[in-house]
């Protein structure tokens, strides 16, 4: 095996440094666009108006956004920055990363997971940017096709279609990297029960507060799983190092 040029820490530190720099650049660019327009065309709105118009949405979206950082970073690793710059997390980035982990049998939270996430999130982002660019350039011929009722119906059910493809990989006992966990779904029972009750009683609330619900359910699932693991109800089998060496 080729000698590693960087240590794991050096690699992760460099990716987080890169991510933070580009996150800062992206924030500056996003704010610069309306500012440059305002200065050039002398159309600067009253700051108090910007504040009053923003405060309501900020109060809703900021806690959701922070909860997404907490929930998604352990899965996406250092590609969280590119993910948060370009969005489409639950409908694209998370599924494409999950698919990659399943394909290469990768354990989430490992250095391999971080590296593979970086590759697939970048590739996926470029695809989306290209497709949107095609949509922009070919707006005239494409619009009548993409706004057909059948296409709009199909795309409105994209999330259940996506999750149907991925559910087996996510809910199976294989955690990736040869690690198997038998009985791990037991840890999700309390969270699942709460979600069932909430969905039946307050379906509208469940849809609009998804980010919060993920954040609240995380400790529920985490500590339930930990309790059951310590009690021996969930068993984890690590891969055989000899088998791993043979497969390299």
């Amino acid at each position, binding site marked *: 095996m080729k000698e*590693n040029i*960087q240590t794991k820490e050096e690699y*992760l530190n460099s990716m*987080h440094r890169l*991510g933070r720099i580009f996150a800062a650049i*992206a924030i500056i*660019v*996003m704010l610069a666009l*309306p500012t440059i*327009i305002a200065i050039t*065309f002398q159309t600067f*709105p009253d700051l108090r108006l910007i504040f009053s*118009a923003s405060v309501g949405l900020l109060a809703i979206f900021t806690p959701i956004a*922070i909860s997404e*950082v907490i929930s998604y970073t*352990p*899965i996406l690793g*250092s*590609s*969280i920055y*590119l993910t*948060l*710059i*370009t*969005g*489409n997390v639950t409908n694209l980035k998370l*599924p494409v990363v999950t698919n990659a982990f399943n394909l290469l049998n990768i354990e989430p939270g*490992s250095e391999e997971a971080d590296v*593979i996430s*970086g*590759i697939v999130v*970048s590739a*996926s982002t*470029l695809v989306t940017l290209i497709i*949107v*660019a095609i949509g922009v350039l070919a*707006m005239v011929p*494409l619009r009548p096709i*993409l706004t057909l009722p059948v296409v709009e119906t199909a795309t*409105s*059910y*994209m*999330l*259940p279609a996506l*999750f*149907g*493809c991925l559910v087996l990989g996510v809910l199976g006992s294989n955690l990736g990297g040869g690690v198997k966990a038998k009985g*791990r*779904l037991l*840890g*999700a029972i309390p*969270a699942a029960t709460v*979600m069932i009750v909430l969905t039946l009683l307050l379906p509208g609330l469940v849809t609009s507060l*998804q980010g919060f*619900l*993920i954040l609240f359910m*995380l400790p529920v699932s985490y500590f339930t799983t930990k309790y059951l693991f310590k009690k021996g109800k*969930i068993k984890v089998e*690590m891969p055989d190092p000899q088998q791993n060496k043979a497969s*390299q």
Partner: protein
Amino acid sequence: MVSFTDITESSLLYILVAIGILIIVSFCFITLKKSWQRAVELGYTKEQLRNLITSSVSFSIIPSIPIVIGFFTLAAMFGVPWPWWRLSVVGSISYEIMATDMALNTANVDLAGASATDLVLVMYVMTICILGGLVSSIFLAKKIQMGAMELKQKDPRWGALGNSTFMLTIMTVLLIPMLLEGGVSLLTFLTSLLVTLALYVLARKFNWSWMYNFIVALSLTLAMASTVLWTALLG
């Protein structure tokens, strides 16, 4: 006096959007290059990585189409460049429309009567209200990831299991409302699940190793196509 449409179709806005998108593209290429190099150092073959890219590309095409549809909606309101930018960065069509509504209501105007200044107000609101995640990631993301990895090092069994609870929780929260909705949503989910299973079985039985890269993209396409049937049956 500058009007709403003077800004929405200005060359300056096109140039600014093009620069912004190029910056994102450069971030993608730099990340891809560094991650690819590291993957090779970790022992992944170029063939494995090429298959991974193929699978990710084919997977990403269909979910990108709703974004284009969203662009058409926003373009009818704001011209081409600004919606192109907004749908290339964080946000969604529903969020952008919510932000537009909030901004215009605060300014006490409607879209038809909005001035150039009202447009800039909308631009600021769309931009500012969704930045919370990106800002907090600068301070939190590294700590969170390193914390999760440290946990794994102390106890590899619990570390692997503990890390898996994140995706499991996300799936639980997102999946249960989808399934309980019943109807076309549930049938689409089940169709997707069954098609995925069938394709895996076929790939294994006939030893079609190439198929694994396309199973998810194919299942997604067929499941979404099936919604037409389910919608017709259930009304």
